[in-house]
């Protein structure tokens, strides 16, 4: 019960009046920004990061926890009321949620999303309390070869498993690694890709990379194809649920939590798969399966719970191994690094107070979110009607501010523009953004672990396979890479399951006409195929 004691200590740290105020501000701002159309949780967190610069570590992490959950909840509100998921994880929510809103049941959809997120977030954070020390105990005994293997695993997962195109995913990853290369080499101090520019020798700030890829890239991309006139939003009252809605929601919440947490906790990343699995499971189990596709509440309750549980799950590899597997987690690493904190197994030993305060503030943020967002939902819904020119001009305003404040350098704004152009290209040509940011953040760390592995063995590459976990991980990677093409080949041979040669026709988009750049295309495709099969 050691963790519980530590957690209680964390609560006593987090529950000061000042810290509660930070949590409140975080939740409010996170939701307000997250609810804006086109802004996903990762962009919310990146844009609001400068706000925490002046706070002390504890205060800023607490505010951050609020922003994190607020941003995610804001994203589901947008999905339900406007049908525009900001991140792949809320794509599935939009499926039934928007149908419910159109049928005049928006209040219930928002309520089941909010309460489901709370239930799942709380349970999953509870699971984190017990799982994390366990993982730390194992991780502390792992050497560089295992870490290197897990990073390669995370790279392969984000670039080839989640996206729609492997070549583009891998290209994104290598571009990210290239960005991570810029600066002085950590071990030898040799400049790499600095082109004689002294301002580049410290490397490119992760905040600048994140804001450029998520905010500037998105704003430029939308500017190029801006749909004129504001899309119709659905006005909504204070969320509430009837007895029947509760009855239909609580089981999906729990199932969603159970599905979501493990998927977040393995460093393969992404809430995309668990939300989709939850959707399919609820559709199968529901007595009202004929309502699916027309606004079934189970189809919102389950995936929303899965989404939040997996978000809490991603904190397991993030805090215990230092492995970010979602875009939001990648930005969080940037926030940690600002204070010279490097997540990993040692963090629990060197900064136990900090870690447990952070975990405690996750519970607090989650509770505040529920308390605030139910009454404030109609206000958030009004934010959806903000005129688009102001919205995207505002995004650029805050993006440049964030980049500048990251080092008080105008040079950062120039970098922001260049990487923003990269983000534009990624959206234009279907390159996933997630591998870029994960590659840029993990690249230098991976190099360090690789060096360590080889140092111990005096350069013998066999050292990379010297730990059992490493061997297991490489085996899984090979399976990941080999099995899907084999299945595809078999299908092409024996069945009519060949992928369509032409692009998806427009009528397939009407379910929810959107796809996000971080790899949700595949889920959409799968859902669509399921629909048509019915």
């Amino acid at each position, binding site marked *: 019960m050691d963790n519980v004691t530590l957690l209680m200590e964390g609560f006593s740290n987090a529950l000061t009046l000042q810290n509660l105020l930070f949590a409140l501000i975080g939740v409010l701002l996170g939701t307000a920004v997250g609810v804006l159309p*086109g802004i996903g949780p990762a962009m919310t967190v990146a844009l609001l990061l400068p706000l925490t*610069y*002046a706070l002390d570590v504890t205060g800023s992490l607490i505010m951050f926890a609020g922003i994190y959950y607020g941003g995610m909840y804001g994203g589901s509100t947008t999905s339900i009321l*406007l049908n525009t998921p900001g991140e792949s994880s809320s794509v599935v929510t939009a499926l039934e949620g928007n149908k419910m809103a159109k049928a005049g049941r928006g209040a219930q959809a928002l309520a089941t999303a909010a309460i489901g997120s709370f239930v799942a977030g709380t349970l999953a954070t509870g699971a984190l309390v017990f799982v994390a020390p366990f993982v730390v105990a194992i991780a502390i005994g792992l050497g560089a070869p295992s870490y290197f293997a897990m990073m390669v695993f995370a790279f392969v997962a984000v670039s080839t498993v989640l996206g*729609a*195109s492997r*070549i*583009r995913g*891998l*290209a994104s990853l*290598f*571009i990210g*690694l*290239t960005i991570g*290369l810029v600066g002085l*080499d950590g*071990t*030898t101090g*040799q400049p*790499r*890709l600095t082109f004689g520019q002294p301002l580049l020798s410290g490397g490119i700030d992760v905040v600048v990379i994140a804001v450029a890829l998520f905010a*500037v890239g998105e704003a*430029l991309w*939308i*500017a*190029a*194809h*801006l*749909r*004129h006139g504001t*899309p119709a939003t659905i006005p909504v009252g204070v969320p509430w649920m009837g007895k029947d809605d509760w009855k239909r929601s609580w089981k999906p919440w729990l199932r969603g939590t159970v599905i979501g947490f493990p998927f977040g906790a393995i460093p393969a990343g992404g809430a995309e798969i668990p939300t989709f699995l939850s959707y399919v499971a609820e559709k199968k189990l529901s007595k009202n399966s004929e309502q699916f596709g027309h606004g079934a509440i189970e189809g919102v309750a389950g995936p929303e719970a899965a989404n939040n549980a997996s978000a809490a799950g991603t904190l397991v590899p993030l805090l215990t191994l230092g492995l970010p597997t979602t875009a939001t987690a990648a930005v969080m690493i940037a926030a940690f690094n600002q204070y010279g904190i490097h997540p990993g197994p040692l963090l629990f030993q060197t900064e136990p107070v900090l870690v447990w305060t952070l975990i405690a503030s996750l519970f607090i943020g989650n509770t505040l979110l529920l308390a605030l967002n139910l009454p404030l939902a109609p206000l958030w819904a009004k934010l959806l009607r903000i*005129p*688009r*020119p*102001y919205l995207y*001009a505002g995004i*650029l*305003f805050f993006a440049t*501010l964030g980049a*500048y*404040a990251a080092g008080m350098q*105008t040079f950062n*704004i*120039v970098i922001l*523009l260049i990487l*923003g*152009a990269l983000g*534009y290209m990624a959206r234009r*040509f*279907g*390159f996933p953004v997630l591998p870029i940011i994960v590659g840029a953040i993990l690249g230098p760390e991976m190099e360090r672990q*690789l*060096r360590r592995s*080889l*140092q111990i063995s005096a*350069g013998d590459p066999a050292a990379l396979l010297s730990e059992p976990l490493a061997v297991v991980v490489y085996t899984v990677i090979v399976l990941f890479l080999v099995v899907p093409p084999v299945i595809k080949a078999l299908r092409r041979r024996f069945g009519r399951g060949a992928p369509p040669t032409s692009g998806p026709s427009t009528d397939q988009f009407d379910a929810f*006409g959107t*796809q*996000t*750049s971080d790899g949700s295309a595949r889920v959409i495709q799968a859902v669509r195929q399921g629909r048509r099969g019915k």
Partner: protein
Amino acid sequence: MTAPSTVPTSGLRARLQGRSELGVAALLAVIAIVIAVDTANIRHTAINAGVMGPQVVPTIIAIGLGLCAIALAISVLRGGHADAEDGEDIDLSQKAHWPTVFGLGGLILVFALSMDFLGFVIGSALLFFGSALLLGSRRLVWALVIGILLAVGTFYGFVLGLGINLPAGLLTGIL
């Protein structure tokens, strides 16, 4: 604001689309070459002589990018193409409106270059105003007022709330 772009014949457009993705493959190849050249120029010092010098990882990345460039080029030539990202505010039936994109990029660049002279408040208010106009706002006064309020509010928020001094530039002494 919807500038009617010249609508090319569908055949030409399809060919252009194919060609633009080849451009991406070429860009990847160029980046690979840049990394390779940069890596070749890393000075060899005694400290590099360890087990794994600073050249190893860049070399791997350069090779990886090069392979991706080739694979992408082959995939595009065989008719593969990716779908551009769609969204509620995005109308993919229009061609990209380049004046807006380059206008916004130019504004950001001017903002960066003029920061020290104009200061944050004037620069960022103009950035907001200009961006809103480029994005199709017709209410000039409103855009300007919102821009000024945002800029002044942020300036004082940072200075008073966060203790971070943003450059005041031309308005030094006034703010």
